[in-house]
């Protein structure tokens, strides 16, 4: 059973070891440059894994499998591997890791610690996306909390400590639900092996071996992930955390941490409980719809740039639920792969949004929209960046946002025509709040104090360019990513398809 390729292990532990090296040896700028070098190395590793998987997409690859706690009554493994579902998200994490380092290029406060936490965060998120042992998955899932807590509470703005604590308590509450589900699954089936669990669970269901009814288990796990995604009514931590987090943390939070919720829904809830997914699909769709509409409506009213983007994230995350719920007929593959693609595209688009807003805030020292205006003249690069991100976010054809949402709509329309029809209203609302936000903050009359502001510098242009390229590239060549996702959701799709 034991095998070891090593690449994924390196991807997880390289940043963590680098963090320790920084802790002991490096200071200030050296720490920053070292962190950048590591994150670029991470990007290379994750791109290599992604491209390699793409060239030969089949099952689980790059497997690292060792015994971890070989005690009979509690058998866990160190089991890593990627499949079609995790490969693109792994790449996304590598990409945003570099972006996050650039985003915190000019911080002056406790520089060393900042990069330590950022690297540990990246390592643990990669751990979540690559773990194939449920216990190990949970370990990384929890591990990611601590760096995020510190990043928000130390380098944030406003009520940063309150927001950090709120983020943490909400997420731990979600983990608590997940832990109960995880233990119940383990006690019922005797394994944490995620590749074997779907079959073992269906056997356990058929012979009545589950200690908690399967629908409860499904709900326990999906609620755990729903808090992370976040789903109404568990979303209240997100606007606070996003608004008060430093730019790098916002980028990571919106870009990859929310995706952990979506990923978990696919990897755990849907894969292990396809029948329950089918039974609850209407509810998931309804909650998705609430997220989409509620998020969009609340976004319109926001006057803080970051809070606005945070609420728009809630709206966009609703699409993932809608896609996940599209379980009927032939359309289910469309819905699933659309939802998976939405995770990737939203990661890059919202990452770019937060990044640009962060850079603007560094200059204007305010994010209050009525105080801004006319910035497009003094900072054309940043303004075009936010415009591109905005257009992608509202789903302009040619950008990645369009592809993901149209596929989700196509998938969910067959399953829930009325709900989908209502959801399309959100497209209009999104266009409204994005364009209105850009118009108020970037165009119009410029306050005099902003006349002398400078435009983006090299260290800001690099990450912006990286994200814009990925947005446009996936927009015109979506199958580059979606092919892999389609492969990744196939096991779930066929399991759900059987029930149909």
């Amino acid at each position, binding site marked *: 059973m034991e095998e070891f390729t090593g690449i994924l292990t390196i991807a997880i532990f390289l940043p963590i070891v680098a963090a320790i090296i920084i802790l002991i040896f490096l200071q200030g700028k050296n720490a920053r440059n070292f962190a950048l070098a590591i994150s670029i190395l991470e990007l290379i590793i994750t791109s290599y894994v992604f491209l390699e998987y793409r060239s030969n997409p089949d099952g689980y690859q790059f497997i690292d499998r060792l015994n971890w706690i070989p005690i009979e009554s509690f058998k866990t493994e160190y089991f890593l591997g990627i499949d079609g579902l995790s490969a693109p998200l792994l790449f996304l994490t590598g990409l945003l890791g570099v972006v996050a380092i650039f985003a915190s290029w000019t911080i002056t406060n406790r520089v060393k610690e900042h990069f330590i936490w950022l690297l540990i965060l990246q390592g643990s998120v990669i751990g979540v996306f690559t773990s194939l042992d449920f216990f190990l998955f949970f*370990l990384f899932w929890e591990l990611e909390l601590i760096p995020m807590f510190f990043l928000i509470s130390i380098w944030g703005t406003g009520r940063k400590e309150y927001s950090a604590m709120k983020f943490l308590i909400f997420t*731990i509450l979600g983990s608590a639900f997940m832990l*109960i589900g995880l233990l119940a699954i383990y006690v019922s089936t005797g394994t944490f092996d995620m590749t074997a669990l779907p079959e073992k669970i269906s056997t356990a269901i058929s012979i009545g071996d589950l200690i908690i009814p399967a629908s409860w288990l499904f709900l326990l796990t999906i609620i755990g992930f729903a808090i992370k995604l976040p789903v109404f009514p568990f979303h209240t931590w997100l606007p606070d955390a996003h608004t008060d987090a430093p730019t790098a943390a916002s980028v990571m939070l919106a870009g990859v941490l929310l995706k952990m919720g979506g990923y978990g829904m696919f990897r755990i809830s849907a894969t292990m409980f396809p029948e329950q997914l089918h039974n609850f699909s209407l509810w998931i769709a309804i909650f998705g719809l609430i997220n989409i509409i509620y998020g969009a409506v609340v976004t319109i009213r926001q006057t803080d740039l970051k809070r606005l983007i945070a609420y728009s994230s809630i709206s966009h995350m609703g699409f993932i639920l809608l896609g996940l719920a599209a379980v009927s007929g032939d359309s289910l593959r469309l819905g699933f792969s659309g939802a998976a693609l939405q995770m990737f595209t939203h990661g890059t688009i919202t990452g770019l949004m937060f990044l640009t807003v962060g850079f603007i805030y560094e200059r204007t020292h305010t994010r209050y929209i009525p105080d801004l205006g006319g910035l497009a003249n003094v900072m054309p690069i940043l303004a075009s960046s936010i415009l591109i991100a905005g257009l992608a976010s509202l789903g302009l054809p040619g950008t990645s946002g369009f592809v993901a949402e149209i596929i989700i709509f196509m998938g969910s329309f067959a399953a829930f025509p009325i709900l989908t029809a209502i959801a399309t209203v959100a497209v209009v609302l999104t266009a409204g709040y994005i364009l209105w936000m850009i118009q108020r903050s970037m165009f119009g009359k410029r306050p005099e104090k902003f006349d002398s502001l400078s435009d983006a510098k090299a260290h800001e242009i690099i990450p912006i360019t990286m994200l814009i390229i990925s947005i446009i590239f996936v927009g015109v060549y979506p199958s580059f990513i979606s092919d892999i996702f389609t492969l990744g959701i196939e096991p779930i799709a066929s399991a759900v398809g059987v029930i149909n």
Partner: protein
Amino acid sequence: MQWGLSIKMPLHDIYLLSPEISIACLAAVVIVLDLFTKNKKIIPVVATIGVIGSVLLTILIHQDTSIINNGNAFSNTFNVDTFGIFFKYIILGTVLVVILYSYEYAEKFNNHQGEYYSLLLFSASGMMLLASATELITLYIALELTSLPSAGLVALKRSRASAEAGIKFLLLSAISSAILLYGMVLIYGFTGSSHLNEIADQISRSQNLVSNPAILLAMILITAGFGFKISAAPFQMWAPDVYEGAPTPITAFLSVASKSAGFALAIRIFYTVFNGTEISVEWGQIIAILSALSMTLGNLIAIRQNNIKRLLAYSTVAQAGYIMVGLASMSMLDGTSNLGPSGILFYLAGYAMTNLTAFGIIILVCSKSENYSLEKFSDLARISPVLAIAMTLSMVSLIGIPPTVGFIGKVYLFSAAMESGLIWLAIFGVLNSVISAYYYLNIVRIMFKRSSKNDSYEKRPSIPLKIGGVAVILSAIATFVFGLYPEPILNLANTAIQSII
């Protein structure tokens, strides 16, 4: 069973109990040494060497395979099995760390250093005897040997608070011992034996006994007695005052070693005697309710505390609740799996490392000024990053977040509860961990926050890491390492439990 006259002391018995005997002798040596030496610095050194010697003896006995069949000593009143040895490791390790913490701290007691170390060692020898005792009277005497020196230690600071704490501890432990003794008497009265294995025989043979309400009453009384020792709700009210008033190393000692000894007693009595009987299930339900109560009460009150010692006192109440999850599931199980009891053992070992780390840091940060308010921890990340990281690890472990030993322990205990059908209790425990995250992380937040008044930081001297500091760092490293590599302790805990089935 012949008492008194026919007792012989064969060499083998002495060999089996040599760790305990050596600790008791060490206590005597320390107090004599205190009389004859002016240089008090030598006392902790002697104590340290003595404890290490006792650890080596324990390892020697542990390696000796002949004890598996031949571990009985002193007319079957002791059985030196791996279960007892596991607890001896915990207790000796705790004592060793507490002594290391006391090198600087105990200088406060200038003329009473000898008494301090010797009381500490006597108490430890009582706990070690408790872990191996298999006879009710011996258990009781060992328990008293544990409590009485502790009461002295608590009062040793001789301040008002310390004296009050001492008298409180003395009275309450006397009451709880009396209740416990009454329970034991009932068992003796109905079974005619004070030896646990004979009692177990009687109970497994006679259905009448199991259904006899007097036996249930005895179990409830014993539960109440041991509830005091482990400071479980609703018997927890002594803990905050005593923890606050006692010298801080003693607080650490009580919170870890005394709790371990209490659980050793509970597992020994309930697991060996009542395992698999109907009465065990009834008792398990009582324990489950007490467990839920302890967790909730401890965590909710801890949120409001502004004194770190009181906060940790309530936190230990909650931790006792978590450990009792294992006790409850063990009695539900009919012996099919020993996830519950071995979970308790693992958790206790992990809890010892975690809590000792926390208390060690408290001693380093607060004991000079005797100011234990949470504000003392502000800016610790700048004054001493190493201690701040160690404290963070300890707090994270107490919440049960990886990569720490507390995480593995909690998962183990809660899965035991799941397995034995106590799903509601597992849910209770998990949700309680969420509540506890708030106050544990509040400490972390205070340490890493930069206070706006920068000058107050300038005035604060750095904290030199001497012997106590090294001990803190070592136990923090243990908290981390055994969180990632728990296998050795898990194996040890499993064999320990197998030795008493």
